[in-house]
Structure formats: structure tokens, C-alpha cells
């Protein structure tokens, strides 16, 4: 196995960190984080969840609370945690496809909610 000095890895991580810091600072300067509605103001009829919890809110919207809020999240977390063992059981290719499809769907939903939220900032 070919090996390289760790300083090369640190250099690359350092460059990526600088890009990340610049991007994060640019976002902070351009987009103001929402403070929401004051609790002294008249009550808001519908409060949308932050984009990260958008998929979770959709589960709560369409399913009974015990199913959407407890059973599904526990199944998803259990499935994620058990991936190394499920991959053995189902076979590598099929399990990888299932989980990639699930994760890509969740990511696509998250990005959709994030774009919507940034759009309204």
C-alpha cells in the first residue's frame, strides 16, 4: 500500500477549509438568519418547519403521529445503523442501491426545502 506524508493531506484539507470559510462568510454576509415572529405579535396561523425538518413535518402531515413521529423515524435510524449487517443479509448490490436511493431522495427533499427557505429570506 503506497503511503504519503500526512502534511500533503493537511494541505488539501486546509485548502478545502479556506474555501468553506469563505463560502460560509459570504452566506452570512448576504443572507440574514430569520428571527421568526415575535411571541408578542398576533399568532401565526401556520408555522413551517425549518428546511432540515421539512421531510419530518411532511410525515406528520400525512400520517398518524405515532406512525410518522415514532415508527418511521425509528425504522429509518435503525435501518441506517444496521446497514453493515443488512448489506450482508440482502447482498451488497441491492442493499447499496436501496440505501443510496433513500438517501438521495432525502437529500433532494432537503435541498428543495432549503432552496425554498433561502428564497423567502
Amino acid at each position, binding site marked *: 500500500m503506497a503511503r504519503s506524508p500526512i502534511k500533503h493531506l493537511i494541505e488539501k484539507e486546509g485548502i478545502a*477549509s479556506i474555501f468553506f470559510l469563505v463560502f460560509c*462568510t459570504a452566506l452570512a454576509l448576504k443572507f440574514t438568519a430569520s428571527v421568526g415572529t415575535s411571541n408578542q405579535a398576533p*399568532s401565526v396561523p401556520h408555522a413551517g418547519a425549518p428546511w432540515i425538518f421539512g421531510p419530518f413535518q411532511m410525515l406528520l402531515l400525512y400520517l398518524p403521529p405515532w406512525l410518522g413521529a415514532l415508527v418511521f423515524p425509528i425504522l429509518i435510524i435503525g435501518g441506517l445503523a444496521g446497514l453493515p449487517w443488512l448489506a450482508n443479509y440482502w447482498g451488497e448490490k441491492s442493499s447499496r442501491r436501496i440505501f443510496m436511493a433513500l438517501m438521495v431522495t432525502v437529500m433532494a427533499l432537503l435541498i428543495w426545502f432549503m432552496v425554498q427557505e433561502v428564497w423567502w429570506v
Partner: protein
Amino acid sequence: MRGQKNFVNHIRPGFVPSRALSVLYTFCLGGLSFLAFVILGMTGLLLMFHYQPGESTGFSSILTIASVIPYGGVIRNLHYWAGQLMVVTVNLHMLRVVWTHAYKPPKQLNWLVGVALLILILFLDFTGYLLIGSQESGAAATVAVNIVGLIPGVGSGLAQMLFGEPSALSGSTLVVYVWHCVALPMVALLLQLYHFWRIRRDGGVRPL
């Protein structure tokens, strides 16, 4: 002493597998997630100087930070965006791990630690949202309390332990504040250090 040396050698060995240097293999997503965590810690510490949890004080102190304290708005924005980007980088990091089969033995334990970190980060994000103390965070706290209350037997006690007594108008409570600023970050930091140590221990990144 031996344990310390072992830990340092695994966190920062002299040499790493050459394939670990390929940016297109890891995309530095794990390192970037940790960087976001560090930014969150630093900006969060600065915010703590002016933030006061409570039904009436939570929201007003957020407004003070955002509009009165010098550079408070920028620091709060940076805290917010680093938190959002951390969720994105952590999710992409997990996708990369699944794509490159890096969850398979002997790395299954580190995969479990990663899943625990994902859950912790989501909790950190949620408690941060509650601390804004707005009507929306009050609604979110109410939903969360009701959900936790669904757990048979321990639900109401657990809800009290996790959220204190949030009102429908504000999710900002001292209990949520302590979870967000002390307990969850400390557990997340310890798990991250163990996660990094395990990466080297399990042999670093592997080829596809």
C-alpha cells in the same frame, strides 16, 4: 501515557495511505463537517455572552444580538449558516461513505458512531431553532413535547427532561439552552474524536 500516545499517533500519524489524498475520493467532507462544528463552537460561545433563555427574554435577546450588539448580526448569521452547512456536509459525507462501501467491516462500529453523530447534530439544530424563542419555535417545541409524550410509560418524564416546560409562544427554556450549549456539543465532540481515532485504527480510506 501509552493510551495518549496511541491516540495522538492515530489522530495524526506520520504517513497516510496515498489514496486518502485524493480530493475526489473523500471530498474532505468529514474534515469540513468538523470545521463547521468548530465555527459553531466559537460563534456560539460569543452568542452566549448576550443570550438569555426564557419565554420573554429569549426572543428579545436574539433581537438585541441581531440589531444592537456590534457584529452580533454577522456572528449570529455565521452561526446559523455554519449549522445549516454542517447538516449538508454530514449528509453528503454519509452518502460518500455508503457509495465507497466504507461502512463495511471492519468499519461497522465507526459507522454506528457516525449515525449517532448525525442524530446528535439534528438535535443540536433543533434545540438551536427552539432557542430563537419565536412563535414558530414555540409551535415546534409543542409538537416535539407531544411527540416525545407518545412514548409509552416514559414519554411525559422524558419530554420534561428534554425540553423543560416550553410554552406555545416560545421554545426557549433553560433546559433546552443547557442541552444546546453544553451537553450535546460535549457528547458530539467526544464522539467525533473517537470517530477520527477509529478511522486510522480501521485502516483509513479504502479503494472502491
